């Protein structure tokens, strides 16, 4: 069993506990954002929740490494991003069953079947449009829409200039708008 490093042996236990406590609060705060970010990346909330849980658990397990110099939020998002990239790499390598119907899980629950059908069609179109974005644009858009990070924070998370982040978000949004122009009315309602 790998021995976890324990700064408590040398350092101040109270400060250590307080740091862990504040990181825990940061993880709880970031949960929604991380889930939305991953939802944007994979288009399915089952998978997003699964990945978010693993990523946040990773962040918590590595709490000793968080030195407090950087912002906890960007640190957590960076871990979530790396986790997602790892996951993608693993999948490429490992044969797996393909998703039968990824959109099926996103189908709406309404009392009105006609409205439900319309919504389902929209959801499917949006999922397809998101999936068609280049990875960099999808990532930038997802991070921004996760509601947790500003452009500057995204730039720090991705380690690219702010202008690059903005141009990716702009290109991504424009591309989505172009693809989803036919659903203009439903989207603006």
């Amino acid at each position, binding site marked *: 069993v790998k*021995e976890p490093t324990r700064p408590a042996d040398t350092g101040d236990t109270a400060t250590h506990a307080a740091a862990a406590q504040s990181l825990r609060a940061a993880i709880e705060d970031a949960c929604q954002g991380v889930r939305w970010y991953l939802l944007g990346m994979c288009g399915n909330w*089952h998978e997003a*929740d699964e990945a978010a849980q693993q990523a*946040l658990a990773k962040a918590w397990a590595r709490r000793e490494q968080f030195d407090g110099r950087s912002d906890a939020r960007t640190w957590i998002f960076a871990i979530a991003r790396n986790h997602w990239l790892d996951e993608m790499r693993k999948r490429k390598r490992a044969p797996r069953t393909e998703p039968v119907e990824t959109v099926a899980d996103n189908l709406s629950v309404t009392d009105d079947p006609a409205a439900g059908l319309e919504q389902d069609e929209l959801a499917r179109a949006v999922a397809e449009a998101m999936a068609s974005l280049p990875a960099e644009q999808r990532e930038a858009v997802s991070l*921004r829409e996760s509601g947790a990070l500003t*452009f500057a924070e995204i730039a720090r998370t991705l380690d690219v200039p702010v202008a690059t982040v903005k141009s990716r978000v702009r290109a991504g949004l424009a591309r989505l*708008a172009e693809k989803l122009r036919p659903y203009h009315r439903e989207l603006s309602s």
Partner: protein
Amino acid sequence: MNCTTCRDLLLDYLYGELDEARRGEVEAHLASCDDCRTELETLSLGRAAVRTQLQHDRGDNNAVLAGVFDQAPPQRRRRPAGWLLVPLATAAAAILAIGLWVYLPDPASPAKAAPMGEVKLVRKDLSLTIFSTPPQTTTAYPGPLSPDRNKPWRLGQWGPGYVHGWPGLALVRDERAIANLKAGTSTVRFDGVPTAILPTSVRLDSDRDGVQVLEQNYQYDLATASAVLERYIDRTLTVRVDQAQDVTGKLLSYDDRFLVLQPSGEGPRSIDRSAVTSVSFPDLPEGLLTRPTLMWRVDNRGAARQDLTVAYLTYGLQWRADYVVKLSGRQETVATDEGHREIYDYADLAGYATVTNNSGVTFEEAQLKLMAGDVRVILPSGRRLSGYLETDGAWVQEQAQLGGFEQKSFFEYHLYTLGRKTTIREAETKQIELMTAAGVKMKRRYIYRPQRSDRLVQVVSELINEEANQLGKPLPKGTVRLWARPDPESDPLYAASSQIDHTPKDEKLTFTWGHAFDLVGEARSLSKRKLGDAHWRETWRYKLRNHKDHAVSVTLVRDVPPTTYDVQANHPWRAPRVGLIEIDVTVQPGGEAVVEWTHTYNHLSGRWVGRPN
């Protein structure tokens, strides 16, 4: 502002990252420029699309967070069928990471159920004693044995994972019968044990003479990819590379990245594991198991038919008590000699035991016993593998020998035995009725503690746990939920909850519910003077206002320095213990009561209030 500047700022505008002044400028430009407005509409449309997707989010933050802070493996979340295989648990992750492994049964040898010389047992009886949760401590408990999450399972990597919640602890007595135990030494295989078992706590008893245990093994070397590979060193297997080419050869070595294979008649060949799609093994090597198993080498000098009793401790089983107090609506008011008003409520009380099983196995038809009381548990020193959480060895032996556990209390604890047998499934939460009592009389008290809150008045129910009050049973620690009816005809509504500790019979129970809506307090310090060397005198004024339609008696409770030697008050007061003053005040409907008191104390010694002579 020109169009170039505006477009630069458009995204910040859309996401609300601009300051007031800049926003005004952008809006002014947008009002006059069609191109920029179209651009904004496009971006907004894109944004609306992403938000549509987020609105379909049916996940749950709490469910996700639930598994994050435990060091135990992440919670397995139920997923609908047809879902892509994201690694579910450690083993699955390991398998995915290194390729898909396939066991090809050798047609020449039939599937090996139990190797020769092993005897399987038939279960006769099963009893479970679940311990109650010990008092809160700051120490993390060592949780169930868990493999290192990032590595394949191997014996050397097992160790207790620390958890912050109580993992649950239970004593299992499992009686099994063997029909054909041959004379001499043989191996007895005992499966169906929980993955969360404490191997060092296992005890085997035979009820007849003649059976001697020579050796005991707890095997959890499960048939994971790495464990199988390990056994195939120097043996032949077939690897499929890039979904097309098969390589058959002797496995020389393996690590996380490469398999080294030597095809017959050729030199060794290193194969990158990322290119491997599957590995075919001729058979499942011996000694690997598909679930945790206890194995004994026994020496039998007696009969072929033997009954064995196995007792062990396991994590993962816990129980707690939940109580429901339903106010029946009947109420009594008693005027005391001092002119105060005492209110008594009548209620029905029901207690339930909530049992949770996360031990890894289902206990079929088990005799269920719940133990209430704080059992001492020994925490390990350091992270040595032998240092699991365990109770005194002698204690476990003693309990295992107690036939049936029929008595109601033993040693310093209480035991609740379920009258029938029940099945407790893996990952199940079960509620079983513990006790019921109808027409329990509770005294309702209003308590004003200005040092905790100078405004709020607490509502408390007090009762004596005695037979005269329909109770008189030892009540285990748990949560109490209060249900009350707004009027006699309507359904009861959930009103408040409280906690009780283990309460023996004939002791007082106190349920602290919450705060009274219609009672308001007010506290004010009138003076604090130094009288001389280390002598002080303080004067306080408390006001209590009653907005109910009937008179209410409130008890004012306040801590004073233990060296207080003089108290003057405008109401009769009492000191139930050193350093505590209580005053009963009755407040008329719509009225106000004023309590004024002066207490004098020193920092020396002397005649303390409430101190016996």
